[in-house]
């Protein structure tokens, strides 16, 4: 699962990558949200805002990627952080998974 269907904005922690090479190496997990026909578009946008603290425009952009492309790569993280996000997103009922970036 090396690439996403669509480009995403860099994660908020990008600055950390430059100062912490180990974390950069470890951040090999992608959090992906998959499309389904049942979650409301406004709900998905709201969840992205709540879980990631994103502004509405960014959350909506990712929601539209999910809707139009079938999936959106939300963040690239360490396993622990990716797992945390997947737990949160699934707690909201979204179809989200983590995949190793190979």
């Amino acid at each position, binding site marked *: *699962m090396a690439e996403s269907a669509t480009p995403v904005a860099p994660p908020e922690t990008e600055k950390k990558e430059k100062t912490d090479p180990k974390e950069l190496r470890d951040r090999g*997990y992608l959090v992906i949200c998959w499309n*389904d*026909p*049942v*979650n*409301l578009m*406004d*709900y998905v946008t*709201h969840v992205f805002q*709540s879980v990631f603290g994103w502004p509405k425009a960014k959350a909506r952009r990712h929601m539209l990627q999910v809707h139009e492309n079938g999936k959106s790569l939300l963040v690239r993280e360490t396993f622990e952080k990716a*797992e945390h996000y*997947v*737990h949160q997103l*699934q*707690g*909201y*009922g979204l179809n989200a*998974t*983590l*995949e*190793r970036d190979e």
Partner: protein
Amino acid sequence: MRLIRSQKPDSAGKPPSVFRLSPREKVVLLATLKLYPQLDLGYHQLSRDPKSSKPAQQEWLKEAMEQQRQEHKKRLAQFFSNDRRFFNEAEEDLLLTLTGEQMEWLLRVLNEIRVGSWVRLGSPELETVRKLKPTVAQARLLTAMELSGYFESALLEAFS
């Protein structure tokens, strides 16, 4: 159910949002919430690629969802037993008053009912659903799906 007063939710100390609904809508809302939970815990998958996670990590996700479910059920029981705390009479209608945190919780519960009903229907495309000549059981699931979506939309208005 419609929003009549909204403050930006989730900010501590801000006044709650208020929704106006008819007594019948209240009955329907409570009946819909009583359908919780709908999703089988096996629905939650940590990864689509078996190499990306271990069975223990998948099990942990299941446990986390089960724990969340128990918390939602406990809170729902409190909501049902003390609904006068949330609903106030206003002429012929009712006013439902919710904090941002309560709306967030209600949204999650309603969405679980919506997604769970859809999964129980066989996860169909919505175009397929509309062409269904449903059995009684399918009609119940479809109704639950539509009603939870209706109440979700009303709540989401307060966040927009």
